[in-house]
């Protein structure tokens, strides 16, 4: 059990003799026993980072530490890391038992002890009944359990999970997610998961590192990245349905600053906390989550009167869509089930506390963008 520290880790590889920076000066500090997710779109460098930690890929510059051990130059097998591969990578001719024990046998540990260890881990992952089976006979979820068991049998200091749920579908996926989350509370081992699915990262991780184009965007708890995204990328990437983000202009009306969309469909007073950052006449990116807009009856300064374009009732919740212009749709999610149809007039209240304003050019959160200049 130990901390995992990445210090200025860079990865440059060559494609057609041109250098490509896959990971740019990445700094991360994962606490002992913490569950950290590396999250980003495909090709963002998250898998490369994982492979560098595992030792499957050279580190161009920077250092990786487990506790106070620098592991840059260690052979993968000496790093004391357990890796569960994305495509399971089980040895097809071996039984589940032998698959899990393969590693211990290679270390020449007495057979009796191996047996004990395997049974202990099998019980933990609830695969005791499967020990005599061959991988081909297992379902996707079972294979993933065996895969994780094999990674855990080495009693690693750090457990790495590479897209553990991506090959499972629907319901199995959701069950496995719950299982992995519960497992982590039992083994309490520093765990890094790589995923492109933000729901998975939110559900599992204590903290999420969001990476885009090789650069760390934000590192925080699920609620932090959800409620306080540092830039437009994070805001759009986290959350499903995605945050509504559209262009607004700041205008002065009756001596008060207002935000207004180009077609004036949405117009209201700039919230208190943004007043000192907003300049009249400037354009901004305005973001609000579908769950932070509510249907209401009475008017106030954050109410917008509009017409329903599309209404969806999804059982657990209903979604109301309003066409802002040709390209943008404003979505509202309500757990209270309403009954609307196309063209119905409704009033929507924007929660002023939950409005996010981003810089038009840099995409930075406006408070941050100003601090930086």
């Amino acid at each position, binding site marked *: 059990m130990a901390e995992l520290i990445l210090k200025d880790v860079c990865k440059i590889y060559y494609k057609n003799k041109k250098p490509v920076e896959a990971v740019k000066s990445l700094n991360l500090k994962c606490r002992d026993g913490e569950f950290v997710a590396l999250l980003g779109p495909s090709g963002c460098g998250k898998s490369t980072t994982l492979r560098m930690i595992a030792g499957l890929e050279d580190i161009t510059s920077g250092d990786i530490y487990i506790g106070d051990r620098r592991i840059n130059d260690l052979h993968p097998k000496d790093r004391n890391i357990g890796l569960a591969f994305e495509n399971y990578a089980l040895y097809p001719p071996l039984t589940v038992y032998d698959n899990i024990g393969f590693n211990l046998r290679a270390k020449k540990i007495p057979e009796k002890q191996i047996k004990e260890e395997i049974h202990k881990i099998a019980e933990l992952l609830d695969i005791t009944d499967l020990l005599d089976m061959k991988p081909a006979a297992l379902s996707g979820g079972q294979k993933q359990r065996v895969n994780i068991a094999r990674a855990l049998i080495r009693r690693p200091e750090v457990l790495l999970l590479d897209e553990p749920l991506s090959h499972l579908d629907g319901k199995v996926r959701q069950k496995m997610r719950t299982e992995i989350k519960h497992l982590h509370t039992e083994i309490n081992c520093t765990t890094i998961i790589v995923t492109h699915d933000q729901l998975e990262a939110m559900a599992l991780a204590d903290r999420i590192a969001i990476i885009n184009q090789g650069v760390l965007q934000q590192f925080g708890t699920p609620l932090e990245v959800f409620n306080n995204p540092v830039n437009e990328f994070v805001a759009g990437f986290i959350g499903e349905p995605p945050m509504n983000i559209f262009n607004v202009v700041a205008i002065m009306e009756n001596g008060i600053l207002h935000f207004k969309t180009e077609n004036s469909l949405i117009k209201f007073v700039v919230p208190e906390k943004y007043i000192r950052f907003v300049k009249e006449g400037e354009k901004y990116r305005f973001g609000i989550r579908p769950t932070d807009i509510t249907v209401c009856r009475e008017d106030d300064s954050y109410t917008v009167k509009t017409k329903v374009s599309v209404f969806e009732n999804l059982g657990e919740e209903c*979604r109301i869509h309003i066409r802002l212009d040709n390209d943008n749709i404003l979505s509202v999610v309500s757990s209270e089930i309403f009954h609307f149809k196309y063209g119905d007039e409704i009033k929507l209240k924007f929660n002023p506390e939950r409005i996010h304003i981003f810089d038009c050019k840099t995409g930075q959160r406006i408070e941050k963008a100003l601090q930086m200049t």
Partner: protein
Amino acid sequence: MANVRVEGIKKSFKKETVLSDISFEVKDKEFFVIFGPAGAGKTTLLNIIAGIYVPDEGHVYLNNKCIDHVEPEDRNVAMVFEDYALYPHLTVFDNIASPLRSPRYKQPEEVVKREVTRVAEILKIDWLLDRNPSELSNGQRQRVGLGRALIRSPEVFLMDEPITHLDAKLRHQMRAELKDMQRNLDTTTIYVTHDYLEALSLADRIAVINKGKIEQIGTPEEIYYKPANEFVASAFGEPEINIFNAEVVKENTELKLSIFGRKKIEIPKNIQKLVAEKEISIVRVGIRPKDIKYGFIQKNENCIIGKVYSFEPLGAKAILTVQVHNQLVQLLVPSDSEIQLNQEIFIEIDMEKTIFFDSVGNNLLASYSNVERKGVAWQN
């Protein structure tokens, strides 16, 4: 005007039965969704309606005329395919134009040009017309596939999982776009999907099929609130509905339920009556994750003690999994709830909102549909 009727459709491939005895009728201008898990036979059914497969038994009627022996090109149906099925050697323009250039639906070239431009504008792909399908993203390919279907006015639209390959965010957006488009099209549509959100959102009526058999046909409201059996109940909703065994016990004159072997929980009067009439001793109780409350103190007799098994925040909401008596119960709670793992917790099931199934066939006994109209109303 177009209604579609299938009667007693059976189809097997190499001795494996894919569809057995499928019958339903799709009314004129109806948006009809065929919903089922992978391998349920949905696509086969759609292909039979399109005329691509010939059923082993049964008939397909279009406007009450049997079209069993009509070739696909003469059925005047348009289809959107799951993997787009674009013509790789043609540009986007030529792909969309293809139906209007075919011998069957031929139009003069200037009409073709005008129509392609019109459809491309609706779908916002007018700037891609000169590209090849290999240069498009999945979302764009799917729009081209839609465009090829929308360019003529067929009697029936058939859509085979048209938005399955898009990521969750694009799906959310495309679903709204589809629904918006549907209002303007006003054409009979049969839509195949395995995503329950698409089914609930788009459908006028849904046919749930599983293993080649129809489990239930009904409006989204009926499917969600009065599922015919446990399969339908757990197919709609995520996390899926919690279902567990409950014993009927008699206390004084009242009938109560014993869940997890210990608690005596009061049940609504109408269900007591039903249970008494049918002399049932064990029922299966289904409760949706959002209809369970939780707390850290025992507020009343109906509270059941458990232990927090896992807590997964998903944005505004979170899934709370509670272990009760070796069973896992899932709840939908706000994600800012302060919850520690392995901590003791009390859950309370809202018995007004439970759905009862019989313990043998797992079919619907009673649901809370009698009360749901107060708070809930469905579209249409």
